[in-house]
């Protein structure tokens, strides 16, 4: 995608420092980023127990890579349909359950996978977080 089309959140300068979701060295974007401290995390070279999950990869341009792009369908409610009346705005409330990133489809254990960025295990986390969204209300 040419730079002219990378505006707003897609602008590589959109975020500062750790919040940055642009991936420079293997050009693309980070879809899911989670970092923190945990007693279960393996000790790193800096002597801290920090876990880092940066999940990206879109399938590659010229050379095929892992594709972690997920398209998900969310059921709106138990009722069969939702109607929009008289151009009134409809509020769809979506909850994200972060625990699903660890248990959604396969198990992610911080002790076993302390840092995941581009390894094949990224696909497991992507399958997990794809299950984290749920519609909890329609008003």
């Amino acid at each position, binding site marked *: 995608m040419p730079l002219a089309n990378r505006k707003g959140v897609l602008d590589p*300068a959109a975020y*500062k420092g750790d919040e940055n979701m*642009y991936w420079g060295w293997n050009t693309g974007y980070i879809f899911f980023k989670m970092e923190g401290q945990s007693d279960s995390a393996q000790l790193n070279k800096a002597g801290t127990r920090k876990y880092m999950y940066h999940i990206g990869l879109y399938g590659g341009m010229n050379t095929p890579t892992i594709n972690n792009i997920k398209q998900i369908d969310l059921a709106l409610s138990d009722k069969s349909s939702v109607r929009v009346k008289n151009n009134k705005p409809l509020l769809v409330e979506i909850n994200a359950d972060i625990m699903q990133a660890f248990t959604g489809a396969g198990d992610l254990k911080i002790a076993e996978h302390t840092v995941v960025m581009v390894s094949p295990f990224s696909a497991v986390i992507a399958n997990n977080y794809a299950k984290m969204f749920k519609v909890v209300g329609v008003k």
Partner: protein
Amino acid sequence: MLKANKLFLGIVIVFFILAILSWNIEGGLFVSPPHFPKPTYSIEGNPPTSAGFKLGRKLFYESRLSADNTISCGSCHNQFAAFTHHGHDLSHGIYDRLGKRNAPPIMNLAWNKYFMWDGGVLDLDLQPIIPITDSNEMNESLSCVLDKLKADKEYPQLFKEAFGSTEINTEKLMKALSQFMVMLVSANAKYDSVKRQSGVVFTAEEKAGEVIFIQTCSSCHVPPLFTSDKFATNGILSQQEVDNGRFDITLDENDKGKFRIPSLRNVMLTAPYMHDGRFREIDDVLLHYKKKYNMSDSSIHYLKSFLHSLTDQDFINDVRFSEQ
């Protein structure tokens, strides 16, 4: 009859002017050497202008691109060494931090399909983001760079001259750098003079070297760019090797230890060699390949003569490319 001639002449002149105008709009200052293929970079999408090129040059030599305002692109890409970091095996960032790979030359980038040793970048306009943000190089964020340039007295006006408004954003910053970098064309070595049949001829040794080169080296280092823009192992990896190269990008086991094949233009100026700068002298590199391909001493001698013919003095002495 005279009138018709005049009319014809007028039409020809109008077409001629239109042709010049459209050529200027399409390619700007950029001229592709006749013996080179079509550039990969979309020159039409960002045609170098005089103002854009000068802005790009100023940015290339701008140390405020780094976190502590100490190093610029030009710090590690020295013109006299064909825009490599002479004498440095690994790239050298702020606070004396060292990267893991050797700074490659900046030349003929308009023809690259891939950038960086691992080919992780596919668009020249996105390449500068890596050295700017890498903690072992300039360790700066793009948004901070933009803030610094916006606060400067000169830059807003220079961006206006180049791109029509004083606004400074990622796109303009990168496009200005690209305008400078695509203009860094090296196509005037002795090799080129010989190929252009301009009266210059190879010596007997250079000629013998070219024959050996074509037989042994040219499937990877394809003339006239002297690279195939593909990835290969060079047989120098050991079990202790820590850099997986192209594998880091594709996660394909077959890509382990593969790196982008570098161009050999100006190779006599770009020591040290290989992705990690492990070979200090060209003779070390030639010795490596001598063993690999079981070549004779005389073959290596001729090959070296040929490689000398790839040095482009005009390129490394062109004042347009120097820090002003």
